[in-house]
């Protein structure tokens, strides 16, 4: 029988395999027995592992009252997997779960006055390696708090379709996935939500998500509306179109577009989307029709009148208006609608939804509607 003296309680699988390197001559106190000794020693400690996930060993403690047994939370299984400590049993009792940790030692205090048998239960684990520039979450999370998962478990990886790295300006758009170095598969482009993929942890896995950088193309115009505003892949060409309002006398005329890397033709602009940018449609006003008709002076006069008038009259085009009748009751109802509308406005002012200034303007507009 080979007997080696040890200093402390660092007894685990790797230690057993490297016993000679760990012997220290200073404080020889406990005795490790590499081969299992015959049963019968008064206070012998027998350590074994369910399914032989590590080699059994025995210790003859010198301590009088108790002995601290240390066991690694995880140890190497083979090149691609490891064992993770799950629970232990003392003297054939029930298995007691231990905290699942990736690294470090689990310490168990054993009374030293009698012989004891300790059995450890461990499970195999495989790692998962994920690369995603839009971020990801794994559920359920790793039981050991790292990227290793129990053999046979199903794991769902969720990654957002888009991640805005600069809010409203720059984002990453998910476009593909490769699992375990296979060819990348296309992921349909979606603006929001998450893409989920489930893997069975029967071997190590590698998930590589592919994404592209996108920039937001904004457009502003004093007249009409711009179409084509939105997110575009970096380096792509975008087309913006503005529709010119159809005015009879004083017509807005599009004179061009302002912004970088723009080619324009009429009301359409081609833009190289190489950064977040805002493109501006530039307009001038064409008075020729009005001049021809010789009605500029009346229009100026009318405009002045309108400006003054508009200060009192709202421009809101409400779809509804109660038909006035000469019936007294109808008038009463119309007045009642206005009275209650103003009371509602009052409550919005009281609750701070609208400012005092705005309240006065809105009240006037309500009266005129």
């Amino acid at each position, binding site marked *: 029988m080979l007997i080696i003296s040890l200093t402390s309680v660092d007894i685990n699988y790797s230690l057993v395999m490297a016993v000679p390197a760990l012997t220290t001559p200073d404080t020889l106190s406990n005795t490790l027995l590499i081969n299992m000794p015959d049963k019968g020693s008064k206070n012998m400690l027998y350590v074994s592992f369910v399914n032989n996930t590590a080699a059994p060993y025995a210790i003859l403690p010198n301590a009088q009252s108790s002995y601290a047994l240390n066991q690694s939370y995880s140890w190497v299984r083979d090149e691609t997997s490891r064992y993770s400590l799950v629970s232990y049993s003392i003297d054939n009792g029930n298995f007691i779960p231990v905290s699942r940790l990736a690294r470090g030692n689990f310490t168990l205090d054993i009374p030293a006055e009698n012989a004891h048998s300790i059995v450890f239960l461990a499970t195999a684990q495989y790692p998962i390696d994920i690369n995603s520039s839009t971020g990801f979450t794994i559920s359920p999370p790793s039981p050991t708090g790292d990227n290793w998962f129990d053999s046979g478990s199903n794991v769902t990886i969720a990654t957002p379709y888009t991640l805005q790295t600069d809010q409203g300006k720059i984002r990453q758009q998910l476009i593909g996935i490769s699992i375990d170095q296979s060819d990348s598969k296309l992921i349909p482009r979606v603006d929001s939500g998450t893409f989920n993929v489930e893997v069975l942890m029967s071997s190590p896995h590698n998930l590589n998500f592919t994404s592209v950088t996108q920039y937001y193309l904004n457009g502003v115009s004093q007249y009409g509306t711009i179409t084509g505003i939105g997110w575009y892949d970096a380096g792509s060409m975008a087309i913006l179109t503005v529709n010119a309002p159809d005015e009879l006398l004083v017509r807005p005329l599009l004179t061009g577009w302002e912004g970088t890397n723009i080619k324009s033709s009429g009301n359409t602009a081609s833009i190289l989307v190489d950064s977040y940018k805002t493109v*501006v449609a530039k307009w001038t006003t064409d008075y020729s029709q009005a001049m021809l008709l010789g009605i500029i002076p009346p229009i100026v006069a009318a405009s002045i009148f309108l400006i003054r008038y508009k200060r009192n009259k709202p421009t809101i085009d409400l779809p*509804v208006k109660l038909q006035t009748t000469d019936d007294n*009751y109808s008038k009463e109802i119309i007045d*009642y609608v206005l009275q209650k509308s103003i009371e*509602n406005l009052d409550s919005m002012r009281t609750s701070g939804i*609208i400012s005092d200034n*705005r309240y006065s303007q809105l009240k006037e507009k309500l009266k005129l509607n």
Partner: protein
Amino acid sequence: MLSQEDLMSRITKVKNLREECFKYLETAAQQTLTHQIIYAIARLSSEKMGPVKLAEIAQAVSGMSDKSKQDVIRLTMEKTLLKCGMVEKLHYAANDVRYILTAYRFQKVKKIESFRGDNVEPIGEVFEIPMSTWPVTDEYFILKSKKSGYEEALKKLNSDYDNGRIPRGRYEDLIRELTGNLNEIIRKIDSKFKDIGELMGK
């Protein structure tokens, strides 16, 4: 000018802010220039229903809009609010630059770096710039008030009919007319202001 949809989207979205940016919104920062700039932009944008010029912000914050005041405001914004993404700078023309808030509702977050990638963890509740400074069009408030007015008028009409104040024929005409008007208002609110209505009605 910005479209109504653009303005609405700024109100409805919640922008995540790291602590070093969120601090500009907090009560403790009320006396700081940055805090005053945020509220000035919000108030002016609400009045103009669009982005505002530097001179207007300077006037609102300091009561003066000379170049030196504008420079102070511009530099403060560039170092803080633009960097944090709280304010957007729009170039309308070479000499026409305007500013607007990117959002009116903010969530303080803590950035967590882990092997699974960067994540953010919200801290506290969503902070809202006061509703009275949200760039909501007059049309919304008029429609909301009218809706309430018509609802109350329908109640009165039913009550008056029950009490025999009006004949059946007149009652039915008015019910039809008022209900039609109310439905049209509701349709318009739902089609144009659904999200904003939910936010302001909460």
